[in-house]
């Protein structure tokens, strides 16, 4: 019976194509937009993800996101260092500033002021130069995508002189740092210099980056930090999630992507629903014949379901192939969509959605087949 069902399906090339195209399109739309959404909101946590050796982020109790820290007093650093279970703790200053090139091009950038000695928090994947180069006067490192934005078409190499909030800075190194959600360019510099580049006096500590001692666990140590200092302390993983949650809650981004993904699903339901209904009603006589020669409704149900599942599988395969091709294509070092990928969770969710779409579509047409009176085979 299965082979009869599949032959019915593959025998009708035009409708098969329509079904597969409809499902592939909705799969593509859902997977592409889903991956895009994840990629975009994950950018807000890129600072956290780039700081690989940090296990605990300590911040002002009112800080909610990695991209919008509240300033703390400088003395908090030493208080954190005094908490048992803390192996080391270093300061990080994070601010936004305006970059201006000699050619007159300008852009907003996130300035990350790193601990003068350890440079903890830096993304160590350098495209040119090295973290050590940051020790020179007026030295900064800029991410390669930012470099390409500021000097389009020019070879990516150190040596450029720019102004940050009207102070001189020399690009001594190029990093592979991932762009943030709100600031498109990431600038690393020493903490002392970051204070000079950005307005305000002392007490502008954004985060204390810390590591837990061997034999302890970061979540527990974080609790002790909070108990002793009154500051908020999160593990890197918790802070990543909190930051992404913050973006979802405080921007319309989840809603607008939700709308597009929902539309993708709707297009899928409509196109595959209509085509499947058409497919079934065109084949209604064939189903009537099968019923006339003794096929039970259960087997008919199985036939329609297997046709639906096979179509869903093929359409999903094509759609997912296209979507991953898209992400493969855009995730290039110098692409605006750098760092975007298709998470397997999105692929899995789209698979479930596709199956539901096709089963819904077939349920509508199934009713007609199940109530079908086999006696219609005698009518002309």
């Amino acid at each position, binding site marked *: 019976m299965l082979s009869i069902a599949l032959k019915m399906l593959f025998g009708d090339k035009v409708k098969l194509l329509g079904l597969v195209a409809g499902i592939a399109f909705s799969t593509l739309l859902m997977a592409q937009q889903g991956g895009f959404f994840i990629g975009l909101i994950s950018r807000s946590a890129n600072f956290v993800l780039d700081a690989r050796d940090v296990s605990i982020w300590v911040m002002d109790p009112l800080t909610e996101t990695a991209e919008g820290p509240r300033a703390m007093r400088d003395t908090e650093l030493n208080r954190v260092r005094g908490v048992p279970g803390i192996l080391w703790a270093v300061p990080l200053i994070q601010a936004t500033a305006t970059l201006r090139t000699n050619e007159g091009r300008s852009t907003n950038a996130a300035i990350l002021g790193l601990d003068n000695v350890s440079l903890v928090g830096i993304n160590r994947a350098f495209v040119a130069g090295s973290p050590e180069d940051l020790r020179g006067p007026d030295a900064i490192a800029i991410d390669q995508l930012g470099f390409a934005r500021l000097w389009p078409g020019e070879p990516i190499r150190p040596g450029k002189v720019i102004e940050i909030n009207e102070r001189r800075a020399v690009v001594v190194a190029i990093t592979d740092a991932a762009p943030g959600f709100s600031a498109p360019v990431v600038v690393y510099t020493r903490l002392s210099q970051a204070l000079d580049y950005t307005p305000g006096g002392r007490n502008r500590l954004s985060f204390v980056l810390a590591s837990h001692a061997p034999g302890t666990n970061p979540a527990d140590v974080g609790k002790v930090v909070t108990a002793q200092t009154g500051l908020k302390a999160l593990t890197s993983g918790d802070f990543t999630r909190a930051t992404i949650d913050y973006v979802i809650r405080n921007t319309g981004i989840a809603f607008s992507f939700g709308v597009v993904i929902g539309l993708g699903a709707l297009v899928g339901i409509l196109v595959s629903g209509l085509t499947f209904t058409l497919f079934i009603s065109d084949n209604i006589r*064939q189903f009537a014949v099968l019923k006339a020669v*003794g096929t039970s409704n259960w087997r008919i149900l199985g036939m329609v379901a297997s046709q639906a599942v096979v179509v869903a599988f093929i359409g999903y395969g094509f759609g997912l192939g296209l979507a991953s091709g898209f992400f493969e294509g855009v995730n290039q070092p110098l692409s605006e969509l750098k760092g975007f990928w298709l998470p397997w969770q999105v692929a899995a969710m789209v698979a479930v959605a596709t199956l539901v779409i096709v089963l819904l579509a077939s349920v509508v047409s199934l009713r007609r087949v199940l109530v079908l009176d086999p006696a219609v085979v005698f009518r*002309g």
Partner: protein
Amino acid sequence: MSGVIVTNLVKSFGAGDARVTVLNGTDFSAEAGKMTFLVGPSGCGKTTLISVIAAMLSVDSGAVNVFGTNPLILKPREVVRFRGETVGFVFQQFNLLPSLDAAENAAVPLIVQGMSSAKARSKACDLLALLGLGASLSKLPSQLSGGQQQRVAIARALVHEPKLIVCDEPTSSLDAASGKTVMELFSSLAVRPDRAAIVVTHDDRIYHFADRIAFMEDGRVVRTEDKTRPHVIALEPHR
């Protein structure tokens, strides 16, 4: 007598003012080993009657006996099985599945009953060869002439060796020559001592194939006529 016996069948369609009574106390019988033709003017209820006999339609009242079984009182599941095992169908419009080849089409009733595709196909091929289609086993219906398609349909009606075969206007879509070939093959293969064959037709060119003709008017069989079929006897050694 073994075969099909229908007594006092009443069947109406629709409700209220639109209600039409199509079978109006119909009595009818078809003996095993014989080919019974059912003829009459359009709309007199022939298709309705064979639909009831073939367990595809319920009735308002009356009784049907098909080789000892009354399909009207079976449970829905048993009706489906009864149809699959006991009845073979031939339709005016052939009703082959367009994406299956000739052999697969003829094998469908066996596959529906759970036989493996390979075994079902080989039984179907044997039968198609008897019907003169040995060279067209792998052709799709669209690649066959009308007469050839109807012969595939006959193979499908016979392949599971049903006790009852019902045909509705089997030659109406065919030209005279292929209609004659189809009926010759059908009568030589279908008629067996343990099987009843009922053929509904308008086509008086094929009346001479009948053993018995039942004339129907306004939902009743009004007259029957017995015939002799010399050509069937001539073809008998063929089986």
